[in-house]
């Protein structure tokens, strides 16, 4: 049983190839890190912009 689970546990995407980097002036950042930072900023603004509706819908 563990063997078949183990087979499925291998990563689907192989991130082990040579890393991709973006150079911009003195800044060097990996695509992966840039993606994480962009996602964080997007998530932050999504969190404060997406309407938050609760069950009691506005009554006090």
């Amino acid at each position, binding site marked *: 049983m563990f063997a078949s689970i183990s087979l499925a546990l291998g990563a689907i995407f192989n991130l082990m190839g040579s*890393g991709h980097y973006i150079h911009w002036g003195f800044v060097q950042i*990996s*695509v992966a890190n840039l993606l994480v930072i962009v996602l964080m900023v997007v998530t932050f603004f999504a969190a*404060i912009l997406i309407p938050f509706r609760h069950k009691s819908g506005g009554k*006090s």
Partner: protein
Amino acid sequence: MSKNRRFNPDRDVNPWKGAYRPYDIAKEVTVCFIVVALLVIVLSALFGSPDVKSVTLKSWSNADRVDFATTAIAELDGTSGTATYGAPYNNVAGSGQKVGPVSLVNLMGVHIPVNPSADFVINPLTTVTGQPALSKALATFKAASPAQQAKWEKAYEDAVAKAKVVNNTLVVPAGPYGPVGVLIGELTSMATSGALDTSIINSSGFYSTDYTKSLLFVADSGYLANKGAAEHLSGDQWGMMNGTANYPGQPWLWLYTLWYQVPPFSTSWSANADALVWAFMMVLTALLFFVPLIPGLRSIPRWSRIYRLIWRDYYKGRV
């Protein structure tokens, strides 16, 4: 309520006397946990995690015998990175990074004694038995005066710069380096066989979980530095932030590694870069810690007006 002082909107707020509504904290925490756990499982199944095998003295020396021998002679003659490091490993005049006039590392002194010529070269070689040529070379070397040893070491340094590897054997041009040629040659053989790894880690006993000596030895090599640079992990490549290959690393270290890339930390202050960057980051961290008490800094939220988005339901009278 505030005490007898002016109301400061960046420091004070009046207690809420408005409406409340039902809130299921247990449900929120449970749902958050389940969502996060599922997200972790999905990310792990999609991307896994990296595992690049360790460098050993064996793998290093087999990959580059000349680099190993070059590093080994530097350890013996006291010119390697570790030998010239200073505190906390050894006493070296003029060493130790400073912030202004203060060298914290020197104040702490030598707490983790490492003597490279003994720990990395002579002592491991001394454990080898059944090699009369090696034993003789060791005896000759130990009996010689420091001045004589230095002459031999310098001669070997010059010779190893022209060394080659022929049939997996280190071949160093002849020179007036006395017993040092045998010493470094035998050390290289010990390394390529794996015996040197074991000898160094076991030097403090059967059970050792302290890899200080082995790591310092390997870190003195060009081999490890090149491997790191190939993975974009070097200090001047924003390496502190980076992960292996295409994995995300530690993006939260961006501000810490940034200073290493810019003058004057990267130029005129580079000899003390670590101490100065750490000191600077401690100041910035203190600023973050004390934000609530710092006028101006604590006004940024109000000036930025981002709160208008966060509390827009409240401001529009919808709560």
